[in-house]
């Protein structure tokens, strides 16, 4: 196998040299689903449900439940919906699980590819814009009922603060300065966060509110998985701050979840 050498600056070519997606496209490897015009029948595939993120004093906390549903049945109990995008950002997914996971993998590769080629990370704004483009590319699938709506957050190294972005199905990108939630239980989670959120929360409080909001959503929404002590399944939570991305220890999430559940009773 021979290597593809970079062409340098070619005025005829529109190719972005540092883009992994362009590279996939040149090799005909980009994830694409050749769907005809919708005939009214929707494809049915597992759905990832409730995710949320909230800003606090030093950064952003992101939490997701673990349930994936297919129609009215539970498809998976331990699905991961919150992922690292790179060392300083995180992405969470709601919607058609298969498409969303592929999108995350492509997004992660894209950020790492850029970082290695250019020797520097994309700005947080740049990452958020790129994700918007990826959501927009999914638009034809929306007409088949296959929707992916991510949440994106990260630590802006230039501004020195955590930032949070939401998306709509057509790739609209919105920056939020407090909290956001998406997925089937997103409404309930947001209602909970609205009642408890204030500026400059501590990390502990932000984490507790995030986990409690998922539990509150699970109370109302069958597609959201609440804490499951019997099987040892708890929400996944991550923190992005000045030190970068880190996953919150499962034991810590379990402890907080049990406290939150105890508070309710």
């Amino acid at each position: 196998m021979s290597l593809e050498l970079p062409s340098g600056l070619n005025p005829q070519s529109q190719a972005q040299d540092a883009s992994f997606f362009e590279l996939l496209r040149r090799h005909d490897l980009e994830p694409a689903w050749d769907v005809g015009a919708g005939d009214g029948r929707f494809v049915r595939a597992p759905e990832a449900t409730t995710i949320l993120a909230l800003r606090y004093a030093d950064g952003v906390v992101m939490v997701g439940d673990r349930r994936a549903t297919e129609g009215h049945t539970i498809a998976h109990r331990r699905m991961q919906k919150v992922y690292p995008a790179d060392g300083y950002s995180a992405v969470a997914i709601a919607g058609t699980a298969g498409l969303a996971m592929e999108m995350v993998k492509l997004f992660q590769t894209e950020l790492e590819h850029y970082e290695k080629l250019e020797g520097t990370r994309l700005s947080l704004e740049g990452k958020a814009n790129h994700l918007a483009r990826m959501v927009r590319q999914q638009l034809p699938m929306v007409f088949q009922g296959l929707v992916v709506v991510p949440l994106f957050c990260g630590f802006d190294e230039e501004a020195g603060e955590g930032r949070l972005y939401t998306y709509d199905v057509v790739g609209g990108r919105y920056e939020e300065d407090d909290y956001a939630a998406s997925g089937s239980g997103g409404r309930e989670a947001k209602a909970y966060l609205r009642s408890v959120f204030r500026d400059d929360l501590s990390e502990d409080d932000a984490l507790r509110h995030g986990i409690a909001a998922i539990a509150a959503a699970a109370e109302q929404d069958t597609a959201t998985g609440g804490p499951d002590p019997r099987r040892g399944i708890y929400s996944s939570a991550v923190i992005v701050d000045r030190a970068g991305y880190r996953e919150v220890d499962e034991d810590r999430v379990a402890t907080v979840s049990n406290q939150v559940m105890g508070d309710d009773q």
Partner: protein
Amino acid sequence: MTLPYYVPPEQLMKDRAEFAQKGIAKGRSIIAVEYADGVLMLAENSSKALNKIGEIYDRLAFAGVGKYNEFEALRVAGIRHADLKGYSYGRSDVSAKSLANAYSQTLAAVFAETVKPYEIEILIVEVGDTPDDTVMFRVRYDGTLVDEEGFCAIGGQEDELTSRMKERFESGLDRAAALRFAAEAFERVEDRQIGPEEWEAAVLDRTNGRRMFRRLSADEITSARS
């Protein structure tokens, strides 16, 4: 009508090889040394912006000597190869061996088919789970592929550095000792002191998590050498 004049292939290849070797001999060397937790790469490079050593993938790194634009193009091609492979299959399927083979094919083709051969030499390093799984491949301007063990030098002062290191190398060094070993070899061969700002150093270290590549700062180099 004039006949195209005949050049015997032996002569043609010899001329090209000489041309490439001359270009490489002008450049400064790079050393790679295995230590207990990984591999250290060290180069003398006063530029902070133009690197000779770079990350390719989780466990893979690249080092190049010679003409910057040529080895930079190969570095970019290597990252593309690795990212495509890791994306299409799995992250653990990206290996130094397959990458080194691809480099070898590419450089052999460039050497034989283009007007000017590349004036470069490159090194591909992969750190395995144990020191036994660690591999280093050196690819020459004509595509010749050599695998090295323990330590290795490429570039202008390759022979002097290699013989110097051969006398003193021991396996199982820690990172600071490996850095002292490599820096001392450079300074002996060059017969002068080299300041901390003039080094470019990076490691592939098993303790760094998934992405093992990390550059060492001038402060880290100073403290390791003191």
